[in-house]
């Protein structure tokens, strides 16, 4: 019983503790990763821009890449600069909560293995059992 009260206390402390996170006036988390979905990710690498250095260089044997937000994303207000596929991605991002349901318990806990859906049931070679 004490353990239940302890866990409940932790949860309540989490709920009522405020964390300031950038990304807009209102916090919204549709995909359930704990981050504000309004945080900007112009370079589309799944790391919000404020959490990474803007420019990083990596030299390879053959050429040099410059890692930086592309000019394509430099001004999000100019949507005409986005390609058709990028515009679709924006629509898709806004609809991500609609793209799957949680009827499969494991769908929200899949670590991405190709051999199995990370459940006690398995999928071997495409056959799920």
């Amino acid at each position, binding site marked *: 019983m004490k353990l239940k009260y302890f866990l409940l206390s932790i949860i309540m402390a*989490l*709920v*009522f503790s405020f*964390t300031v*996170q950038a990304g807009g*006036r*209102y*916090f*919204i*988390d*549709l995909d*359930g*990763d*704990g*981050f*504000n979905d309004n945080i900007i990710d112009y*370079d*589309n*690498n*799944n*790391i*919000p821009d404020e*959490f990474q*250095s803007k420019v*990083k260089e*990596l030299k390879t044997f053959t050429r040099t*890449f410059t*890692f930086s*937000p592309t000019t*394509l994303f430099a001004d999000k207000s100019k949507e005409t600069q986005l*390609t*058709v*596929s990028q515009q*679709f991605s924006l629509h*898709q991002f806004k609809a991500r*909560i*609609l*793209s*799957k*349901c*949680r*009827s499969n*318990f494991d769908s*929200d*806990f899949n*670590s*991405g*293995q*190709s*051999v*199995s859906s990370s*459940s*006690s*049931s398995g999928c*071997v*070679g*495409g*056959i*799920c*059992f």
Partner: protein
Amino acid sequence: MKIKLLFACFILVIGNSIQAQSYYNTDFSITASNTDNLFKNYSNVTEHFTSLKGTINLYRTDIEQLSFFADYTNYGNNPNLSNIKYGGGITLLPLSDSSEFTLFLNLNYQGYSYKNALTTNSSDFSNENIDGMISLGYQVNEKTNVRIGLNSTLTGYASSSVTDKNLRDIFAGINISLFGSNAFDLEGGYSHEKYDYLPEYHPDFGIHYGIQPRNAYSLLEKSDLNSFYLSLRYSRPLGNKSGLSLTYSFREFTDFKDSSMIYGFSTGYLSPWVASYEGNSVQVKIKTYLIPFTILNFGFGYWNSSYLKTLELGYYDFLGELLSRVNTEDGQLRDDDKYQMFLSFSIPIVTSSGRLFEPSLKIDYIDNNSSIANYTFSNFTASISLNIK
């Protein structure tokens, strides 16, 4: 088969060579994995396997996506498992961004082809999948979203003896932010599917010769399997660079016949319904950007699962061979307690041309305790992959 391989090669070559353009993009990935328990049961079959996947997405407009993919997996120790998965799909998002409604329409086709048989008669289990989803969302205000949807999955087997699996879900959910940065997401749904079951079971002389792969299909009858589920998710930031997610889920059959049984894996009848279970689960996930340029995900989960009564063949150590003995002789229910954790690192790198390179490492550990000895196991799997978009 040559056409399928040609199709796969085409997708892979295209996926790796062309640059992102206005009306299409590509996705190519290679994954190498190693596991100490491929089938996740008592057998502890070790395996290493490599998967190559290529996808091309086509866009005629900004509300429509056509996708085609090919995914080849090669198994090192069990080459007969090697297979190719291929297919395509269409996704429509027809409503404008200014609308408070969002409509999602999706239809996919997937086919599986095997290099050889998985079991004595597993060519029967080459299958094709068609799944579709229609869901509608409405933004009530800046902090509240509601949704409703229909999901349907049809798995058709190559053999006429194996009943196709047709699962339908209807679901509804609400996502709301409260007390600052706290997001709550509640979803409930109802599922319906047809399944094949064994209505009567009579062991003969203590050893159950009655169930054999050769006569397994003829003993089965068809019925409905209905269930409902509820899932509550809570998520919030932990500091500025980490996010926490807690999910509780519950599922229960509504009209399952207690006396009925289904076939399991080892009868040679690779039952599509073995994965059907009721129970509950708790999952905790943490995502963090604390390591520069790296996405780190950690998850821990617990599942309590009660499966359908299942008949399996048993393995006799003293004879050293598999006999047609049922290992659930007393009609014992399979009830599992599973603990699982995973850890993944990925380093996404975007080039100036807009192409994304993402190497990643994933490890996954499962500890499963079951009321049936065959399913008490542990499993450790590690994989490395490179994704190029």
